[in-house]
């Protein structure tokens, strides 16, 4: 039930008085095939609050959007009346270099944050895995890249957050200091919540110094067991890798790439050690290989099926082997790439793969990931595939998650249906 059929004019005028930048949605504003009526572009946290209050008053279903680079991830929303576009909240509010923190608005492209903090020899250790991705979108999807082996993911870097609730109330949690245990850590809850709990408007992150030197050591592998052996060699050694990536394109041979960062003298020694660990075919390079920090579906034509597999480290070989053999058995092919050193791999199946074939791969891979203490999620897929697969898979503690959603968004107006269990 949408309020818009009867009262679009009233909703539009309420939104317009809330933020002044409200337009009719076009086809380009569709959220995974669901056409919204309106797009509001608030320019500040108070404006976002006004917009959400107006949306609440008119019963509008709301989908928050950064630059829209991952808007097709997750399930399509059940309804979407209003897109709240955060691209005008694009300021780096504060970079306290001496305190190694940065505060940015949600619509700020990650690249802008990096440029700002790099001027002081610092970085936000979150990889921009998708061109143009914003702070808010990265948090909402919990996107991460190779750096996660060395410094972790958004949950390890976000120290303060400002959100606007579905009812328009502005709330903050955490703060501007890294060490802080006062109150519940709401930042953790919104990370990876796909816009279903609240709209993030501002975020404070801890920063790390930019390393003086970096080197990547890459070695080929042809069998999954070999990939696992190489990864284990590196993580069990004393080379302190910043990243341990595994790349196994469909049909081709694979490679393990290890990123070493630090001071020149140290990196040089650890590069030599890593080359020894990875065997005679290992080669060192000052730059990462092609495709670094990019998902394996990034270059595919059309809209490939995008998988995220997680597992305990010792499950790497089984996940690699199962993915490839399941794809072959289903008559399709899978590109695999990810942080083998962290237990995370991404998979890409061709855009034209048969839905039943994808479903078969998902089922077998999910079983293996689950046995290895992890999960398999279908991040994105063509509509016919999304209709045929269980996107999120079984989720423990779903009832508790539902209760959290009910408290934050009792009317189910924030991206309804996009998240696990139809939340």
């Amino acid at each position: 039930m949408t309020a818009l059929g009867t009262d679009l004019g009233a909703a539009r005028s309420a939104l317009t008085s809330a933020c002044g930048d409200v337009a009719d949605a076009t086809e380009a504003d569709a959220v995974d095939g669901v056409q919204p009526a309106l797009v509001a572009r608030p320019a500040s946290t108070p404006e976002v609050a006004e917009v959400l209050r107006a949306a609440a008053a008119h019963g509008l279903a709301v989908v928050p959007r950064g630059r829209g680079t991952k808007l097709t991830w997750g399930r399509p929303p059940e309804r979407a009346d209003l897109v709240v576009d955060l691209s005008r909240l694009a300021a780096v509010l504060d970079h306290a270099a001496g305190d190694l923190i940065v505060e940015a608005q949600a619509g700020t492209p990650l690249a802008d944050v990096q440029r700002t903090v790099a001027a002081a020899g610092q970085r936000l250790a979150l990889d921009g895995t998708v061109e143009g991705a914003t702070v808010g979108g990265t948090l909402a999807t919990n996107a991460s890249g190779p750096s996660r082996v060395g410094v972790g993911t958004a949950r390890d870097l976000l120290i303060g957050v400002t959100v606007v609730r579905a009812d328009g109330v502005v709330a903050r949690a955490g703060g501007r200091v890294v060490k802080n245990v006062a109150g519940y850590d709401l930042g953790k809850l919104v990370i990876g919540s796909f816009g279903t709990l609240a709209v993030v408007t501002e975020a404070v992150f801890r920063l790390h110094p930019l390393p003086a030197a970096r080197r990547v050591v890459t070695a080929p592998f042809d069998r999954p067991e070999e990939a696992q052996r190489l990864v284990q060699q590196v993580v069990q050694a004393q080379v302190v890798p910043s990243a341990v990536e595994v790349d196994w394109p469909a049909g081709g041979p694979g490679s393990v790439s290890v990123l070493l960062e630090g001071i020149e003298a140290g990196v040089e020694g650890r590069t030599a050690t890593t080359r020894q660990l990875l065997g005679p075919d290992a080669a060192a390079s000052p730059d990462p290989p092609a495709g670094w920090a990019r998902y394996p579906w990034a270059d595919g034509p059309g809209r490939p099926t995008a998988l995220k597999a997680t597992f305990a480290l010792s499950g790497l070989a089984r996940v690699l082997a199962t993915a490839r053999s399941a794809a072959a058995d289903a008559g399709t092919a899978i590109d695999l790439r990810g942080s083998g050193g962290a237990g995370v791999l991404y998979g890409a199946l061709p855009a034209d793969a048969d839905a039943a074939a994808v479903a078969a791969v998902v089922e077998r891979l999910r079983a293996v990931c689950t046995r290895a203490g992890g999960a398999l999620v279908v991040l994105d897929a063509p509509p016919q595939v999304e209709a045929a697969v269980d996107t999120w898979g079984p989720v423990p503690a779903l009832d508790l998650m539902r209760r959290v959603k009910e408290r934050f968004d009792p009317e189910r107006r924030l991206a309804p249906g996009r998240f696990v269990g139809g939340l």
Partner: protein
Amino acid sequence: MGGTHGTETTAGPVLGPVSPEETGATGEAGGNPEAMAAVTRAVRAVLPANAVVSDRIELRTYECDGLAHYRVTPALVVLPQTTEQLAAVVRACAEHGVPFVARGSGTGLSGGALPRADGVLVVTSRMRTIHEIRPADQRAVVDPGVLNLDVTHAATPTGYYYAPDPSSQQICSIGGNLAENSGGAHCLKYGFTTNHVLGAEFVTPQGEVVQLGGLAPDAPGYDLLGAVVGSEGTLGIATRAVVKLTRLPQEVRTLLAGFASTDDAGAATSAIIGAGIVPAAIEMMDALAIEAAEAATHCDYPAGAGAVLVVELDGPAVEVEHEFAQVERTCREHGAFALRVATDATERALIWKGRKSAFAAVGRISPDYIVQDGVIPRTALPGVLRAIAELSASSGVRVANVFHAGDGNLHPLVLFDDAVEGAGKAAEEVSGAILDLCIGSGGSITGEHGVGIDKAAYMPKMFSDEDLDTMQLVRCAFDPDGIANPGKVFPTPRLCGEVPGKKRGAPHPLVAAGKAEAF
């Protein structure tokens, strides 16, 4: 290691404007005898006799945690040995509306495990099995009562350790660490408990057993584990934890540097961090703290120092060597007049001895003291230290400063003699004013000790009503009846109401009496 955060008494008056008794935060003894009797019966039916404590004298041994000036005798203490037993206890509490409080080793410093006079204290100390050490997966699976340092001991033969190291790590439990999001001297580089707990088996306040997270990262769904860690037992009780194991560093080096003043030591700290070095730890003590440590442990810190820094670097040998030279140089450039370097474990222990025993050592120079746990942005350090010195001078209350300088986590020790009329109140005022300084500088009221009962009254100074209401949404999702450690963390009891947004007809009796806000 000498004294720890958790082993000494922090005697003193109740902090904050309102004592817990006045807010009803700890309940009234004999409040609901029928419900308590029913819970006791239910608990005795599922737990062995020696796991249920109801004897008045025995109960008193549980009346406080590491913050010993708050004491409440619980109505009942249970020591379950299994998840099933613990869940059965919680179910009984839920059924009869009886509050429960979880307790690990009882070393917390904010009264987070302070019992309820009308409730059950659930002690996890008999759940002490290390289930798995999985070096290939860099994980361990442990019971909540397992001691922090025992995880490291179990992992060390495989080349790994458990990184979070609160000073009480010899006696504090993983379950308590998880509840409090415990830190430690080395969290500057390695992060806090929340960065090292990947999964948990968890008993909700309804007594359901659920899995949160697991061996692998990024479990789909809301990161409930992220909300649970650091929630101080107000969302439920973890009965098993999957923790991350960290590779033992190749090299560890520790430096003790004596400075004329805290300003010099603080400038050295900023210069080290500014050079792009991430030490494992940077700790500072001022003259009064050094005096106390000397008296207690004869740690032989540089004579005449107005401040000492303990800087520890760890990691690959080449980097450590290189950066260590840089740290030494930086300290000298900022006026360090004495440097002592430890290269082996014995020398390292000697340097740390003074720092780690600092809290207990203060007992040598003052009969009573309050430990604070405020956080400030590191760059605000010189200004805040000067302001603390001014506070001390104008009030005549002595303040010894011991802190994690690298991350701005201050532990001012406010000294007083409770036998002197008004001294406790004066100390309390100084202590509160220090927290105000921390909040005013953009920091936090607690870096690692937790809010508990001790700082609940300060939460509104740091967070708006809207912030606290929003946190309360999480509480209401987990614990709508408010039976999991009620009275802790949040200043005012709030009632959850129905989902979604239905209002009850008559106001709740607590609301009518003005003791709670409906929510």
